[in-house]
């Protein structure tokens, strides 16, 4: 088991977003969360990451995980390679993994470019590269396809498939169609997930 949510409820700002949500991901699994804006998709990921506590229920997770949100958390003045190496070192990962990860997401030639000069799509790829370099078994991806062009979406689907094939698990939210074969589909559409 890499992630298990048992009868979880989530409340933010005094408002109950969802309740009685259960989900279990093992090696190779994926779950795709959909639903309208403000329904609690991002909160679900933050809850799974341990950044917020469940209002009810329990969350068990792998101690090593990667979280990708719209906030890329890379120092804007640093070169992309250096900014990612900072996180790799905190993970205890070898610096060489950063170069591999950048190549995987198609940013190898931008390693020396300051983060502030990257486009929106390149920033999303850079955030994905941090997850790839982490080698964490659990990936939590919040709208990972947002801002990516068609080629970027294909790359994203390939990277997710490779992560799952390598024994990882993925929980992602999306508004756009993504090819994630065999994924559990979770539609947040009210207090009780469909």
């Amino acid at each position, binding site marked *: 088991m890499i992630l298990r949510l048992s009868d979880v409820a989530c409340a933010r700002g005094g408002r109950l977003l969802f309740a009685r949500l259960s989900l279990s991901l093992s090696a190779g699994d994926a779950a795709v969360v959909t639903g309208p804006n403000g329904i609690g998709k991002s909160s679900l990921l933050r809850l799974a990451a341990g*950044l917020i506590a469940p209002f009810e229920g329990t969350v068990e997770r792998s*101690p090593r*995980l990667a979280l990708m949100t719209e906030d*890329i958390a890379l*120092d804007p*003045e640093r070169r992309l390679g250096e900014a990612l190496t900072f*996180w790799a070192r*905190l993970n205890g990962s070898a610096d060489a993994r950063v170069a591999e990860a950048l190549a995987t997401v198609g940013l190898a030639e931008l390693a020396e470019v300051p983060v502030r000069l990257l486009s929106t799509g390149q920033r999303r790829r850079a955030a994905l590269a941090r997850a790839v370099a982490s080698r964490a078994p659990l990936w939590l991806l919040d709208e990972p396809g947002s801002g990516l062009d068609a080629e970027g979406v294909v790359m994203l689907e390939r990277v997710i498939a490779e992560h799952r094939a390598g024994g990882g698990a993925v929980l992602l939210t999306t508004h756009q169609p993504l090819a994630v074969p065999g994924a559990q589909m979770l539609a947040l559409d009210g207090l009780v997930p469909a």
Partner: protein
Amino acid sequence: MTLIARDVRRGYAGGGAGLVCGFFLLAVVLFPFAIGPDRAVLARVGAGAIWVAALLAALLPVERLVAPDMESGWLDQIRVHGLSLPLVMALRIVAHWVAFAPPLMLAALVAGGLFGLDRAAIGRVEAALLLGTPGLAALAVATGALTAGLRGAGGLAGLLLLPLALPLLIFGAGGGDLGALKLLASVSLLLVAGAPWIAAAAIRSVRD
């Protein structure tokens, strides 16, 4: 070390430390204009004026200490990587002190000369700054966390930091005798011990 090195680099980036020192010296230079050129008076108020200028200069970087990392998701990633927020805030205090205090102490040598302080008096001011600036760095980080994400954070930071820094000012500018220095060290230690927890709690209250 990775975290401290990153924060120290950010402290110096964009002329941050130079800005603090420049502001400090400018504030110090204003005093003779306000109270006149009498050397005896200047020497008498010199230590106090240097401390007031140091407190005001300490306000400058407060907005950059925590808020940018909160807005960019950096602090969320830190937590996801399993690092404790109080530890990260304690390291940030160390990094902020490294980036802010040594240049300020160098600038205080110049300020001491401007006030006509003798060597012994400059030595006492430097000793007081050495003991007091860790507390000032801790206060700055805690204030930065408490005001991060708030509208008008800069002004609010001043309203929070300056009253809390009064004990540092009183004992730091208190003539530099051993008793005052011991009390200054005690206050500084208390602030350094408490600030990481306060800063971490403030961050959690916003992000959770």
